[in-house]
Structure formats: structure tokens, C-alpha cells
């Protein structure tokens, strides 16, 4: 399973992560009450894999969104470096005033 993560800019990759993560969140609830639905199981697997790949790609280039994807190649603790999601720049969609 591959995404064209490499061709996306930061904002595009971040939005892509939000979108595929929402797909995973929503189908997860559906599967709780429909655990044998094959179509939903396939959908979950597809987006779960895309999500893991995109989170890894994002962490390597821009900094981690999850603690599991904190980069090995960093000599400092970059979990705290990028803004938190409620802060300016934290969701990468602030328009300059």
C-alpha cells in the first residue's frame, strides 16, 4: 500500500493524515457493532496501513505527531518542538492576519 506522500507539501500531508485518520476512527466504531462485515474490515485495513505510512513519513520530515513515530535520526527530543494543535500553526491552517 503506498501513498504519494513524498509529492505532498507539509500542509497537504497533514490534511491527508487528518482525512485517513477520520476514516479509521469512523469505521472502527462501525466494526465494533458489525464485527463480521468484510467490506468494513477491508476498508479498515486499507486506511490503517495508509495512516501508519503517512504518520511515519510526516515524522521523518516535519516532526512526530505520535510518540511511536519519533525519529531515530534526531539528537534532541523533537516531540515538544512543533506547536501543539490548539496553538497557532498547530493545525497548519492558520491564515496570516
Amino acid at each position: 500500500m503506498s501513498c504519494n506522500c513524498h509529492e505532498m507539501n507539509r500542509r497537504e500531508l497533514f490534511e491527508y493524515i487528518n482525512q485517513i485518520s477520520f476514516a479509521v476512527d469512523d469505521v472502527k466504531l462501525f466494526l465494533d457493532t458489525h464485527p463480521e462485515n468484510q467490506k468494513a474490515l477491508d476498508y479498515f485495513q486499507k486506511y490503517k496501513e495508509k495512516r501508519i505510512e503517512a504518520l511515519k513519513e510526516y515524522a521523518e520530515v516535519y516532526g512526530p505527531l505520535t510518540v511511536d513515530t519519533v525519529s531515530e535520526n534526531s539528537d534532541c527530543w523533537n516531540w515538544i518542538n512543533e506547536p501543539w494543535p490548539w496553538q497557532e500553526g498547530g493545525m497548519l491552517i492558520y491564515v496570516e492576519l
Partner: protein
Amino acid sequence: MWNYEKRLQYPVKITQTNPKLAKIIISQFGGPDGELAASMRYLSQRYTMPYKEVTGILTDIGTEELAHMEMICAIIYQLTKNLSPEEIERSGFAPYYVDHTLALWPQAASGAPWTATYFQSKGDPITDLHEDLAAEQKARTTYDNILRLIKDPEICDPIRFLREREIVHYQRFGESLRIVQEHLDSKNFYAINPEFE
């Protein structure tokens, strides 16, 4: 066990402060039908739930409600960021400001503090799921009430997302109630409590 993910479930980007609206929207943080009460309700009820599908839905919806609480807090934070003393005075935000400055604290729009009495964890699956279905509808009504008071599309957009999630959660709790009822037969329907007997 929970892990934090450094992003909101749905983006919040508010560029114009509005402490008047913050005072209303804060009810969905710490009010009677707010996201904190929702999360605590489901995460408290799940331990004694005897059916694995329903334990799963209570865990996963209870977790999503924490993400919704974070979105509401982000909205309030951005609506009240860098307020001047004059703006605080003019907008009627002073009674909140005097106790909390610009920090987030769970309260209803009336100022009543968040309390565990906003929800029940009764230990009977039929009773609890009816409470959960009602809770999702009460939250949906609250978001509808908020949307009638807001014109700014930057605020409406994430509020509409949260409103839609109440409807999806209502559907999943409806399916959960059906699953519970399938485990009951005519002898024990309402007569016994499958979490206890």
C-alpha cells in the same frame, strides 16, 4: 492506557476572538450535555458491560469524546486569546476571567462547575444504553442551539462536525442496544440485569 496524538480530530482555526461566544460554547466542555461528561459516562460504564461489542463501542466512543473535548477547548482558547482588559470588561467575560484568567476550566454556560452528577453509570446495559442514546441527542440539540447563535463560518465548521458525530454515535448506540436485546429472551427481558444476575 491512552496515547496522545498531536493533532485535532477535525481542524479548528479561528482568527477573530469573541469572548461572548466562548462563554456559550464552554457548555460543551463542562456543561450537562458536554464532551467531558460524555467521555466520563462511557468510560465509566464500560467496565461491567457484559457484551464485547458494547464494551468496544463504549471504549472507542468514550475515547473520541476526549478528542471532541480537545476541539471545544481549542475553540474557546482561540476565541479568548490575547484579550485586553477592555475587551474582557466589554464582552461580559470578567466573571470567568477573575477566577481563571484565560485558562480552560470545565463549566456550563451558566457558570455552574462540571459535576459527575451530569451522568449516570447504573450497571444495567439497557438502562445505560438508553442514557447514552439520550445523551447523544441532548448534545446534538445543544450544538443546534449553538449554531443558531453563530454566524462566523470559522466557528460553525468545527461545531457542525461535532454535531454530525453525535448522530453517528447515536446510530452506534442504537445498534448496541439491539445487540443487548438479542442476548435477552422473553423470560429475562427487563426482569433481570445481565450485568449483575
